[in-house]
């Protein structure tokens, strides 16, 4: 009984996620497992992360965007990105008890494994700026999706520019 309620809640969360964010729907967290516990566990099911779509929408509303963009094969932050991140930092400092997964992405015009490294550079540069704005290190985690999650599907400069990004994803 408890299990079926949890499944229902997961479905609602996914629906909200699809409306509120540009990224594709989250993977369904396993219902029988608590969120991230022992980082040294060798059991893949013990490491799931739960997204918070309502708070994500609030971040977008108040900070202007949850996403910043990069030049080809670059990971430096321009002034517009820094302004967006400063607003994200203010939101994070005003919203305790949540964490941020800082997620780097690359366009399709790089090889798979290089793009995984490049995505981490972008996420790390983003994290460093948020850190400089006073967001505590233990409230942020960094990851890279490489070229696995494009938002724009074209094979042209306009689409690639939208995919070279870092997204601040609010998690529990």
């Amino acid at each position: 009984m408890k299990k079926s309620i949890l499944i229902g809640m997961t479905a609602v969360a996914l629906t909200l996620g699809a409306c509120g964010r540009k990224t594709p729907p989250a993977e369904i967290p396993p219902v029988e497992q608590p969120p991230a516990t022992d980082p040294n566990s060798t059991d893949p099911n013990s490491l799931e992360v739960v997204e918070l779509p309502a708070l994500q929408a609030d971040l977008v509303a108040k900070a202007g965007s949850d996403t910043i963009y990069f030049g080809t094969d670059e990971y430096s932050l321009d002034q517009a990105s820094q302004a967006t991140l400063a607003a994200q930092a203010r939101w994070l400092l005003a919203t305790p008890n949540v964490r941020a997964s800082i997620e780097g992405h690359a366009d399709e015009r790089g090889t798979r494994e290089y793009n995984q490294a490049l995505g981490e550079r972008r996420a790390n540069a983003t994290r460093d700026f948020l850190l400089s704005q006073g967001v505590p290190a233990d409230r942020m985690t960094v990851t890279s999706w490489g070229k696995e999650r494009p938002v724009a599907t074209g094979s042209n400069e306009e689409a690639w520019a939208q995919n070279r990004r870092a997204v601040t994803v609010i998690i529990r």
Partner: protein
Amino acid sequence: MRMILSLLLAGIASTAIAQDVSEPAPELVGGSVRTNVAIAVPVMPGDALGRQVSEVIVSDLRSTGLFTPLGPGGLPGYSVEEAGNPAYPSWRNAGVSALVSGYIEPRADGRMTVACYLHDVTAGRELTHQGFAVTSANWRQAAHKCADLVYSRLSGQQPFLDTRVVYVAETGPKNNRQKRIALMDSDGSNNRYLTVGRNTVVTPRFSPRGDKLVYVSYIGRKPRVLLYDVASGQERLLIPGNHITFAPRFSPSGRDVVFSMAENGNTDIYMVSVNGGQPRRLTSAPGADTSPSFSPDGRQIVFESDRSGTQQLYVMSSDGGGQRRISFGGGRYASPVWSPTGNMIAFTKIAGPFRIGVMNAGGGGERILTDGWQDEGPSWAPNGQFVMFHRTAQGAGATRLYAVPVGGGSARIMPTPVGGSDPSWSPINN
């Protein structure tokens, strides 16, 4: 035609002698036998499966690009007794140079024997024969073994047809792609999915014995390396700590895995035992060091790094020492893989389009093998004569697997049921 085959067979004999005195096998496909040898493959007698066995042999031989197999349709049949003693004059009159015959018979243990003979029709003599004991459900493997026997005897190369391919099966639109680890025979049959598609997965790679895989799965929103046992389906995280880890590949002993870890904007190469424990760091230069691949003797590792400013190929010893650059052509070089024969490295060349190329293991001798818009992710056949890769279409981003002969020739598409990427070719099956 007869003259050509006589010359051909003389060439084979000298190749075989050369191998007996342990000269390295020739690297290029075909070598002295690059000719369209017409090989008759009539229906094998003895069991109703004979026609299917012969069809798979024909398909396998055609896929090598070296032969023109004929049959089994349209060819006369023969008896079990004739398999080892065919009517050479009538096959000669049919215009073929070689004949693959055989038979299927039940065994006392419930399995069946598939006997496989290769004949030089022109000279009127048997070249080789072998019997394969399989369950009737596993008849395809006997057909692949027979085709490998024919291919090896005529080309002088090691077998590669009785192999599997693990890859990432791709379905759905580009901006919501479902990815599953899939395993199939290298002719596309027996395709099955090892993961359900809940998590994004990339870059599966076979262990040297073909019994295990490493691959990357996004778990807790991070890329993590998983060790997967093919027989049991059991898997576990290989690397402790919630780090960003990717680009895994086995050492030739199968006891270690090299991989990349990204931290604080820097990606380095590490090695970890398959039994667990703390990873050992092999590189520490600022930059993205990734896509490590061992030499077959286990003494060296080729990898890519952008430490010079752009992606280039480097070689180091397996303890991380003696790092030196080996790529100096125009453009960028990525995803290097050391050949099973040890003397070449396959890579992705980025110069506008992405293309698959090979170079000498010491650098130099670069040749580009493909001409797609975006070809990447090379994997060698276990005999070093073919490279499989994936080709991404511009726009919709559909990806398909292809195999290209290293000695030159066009790439052929692999028959996967859905899109495919990141292929890894298995060692020869037991």
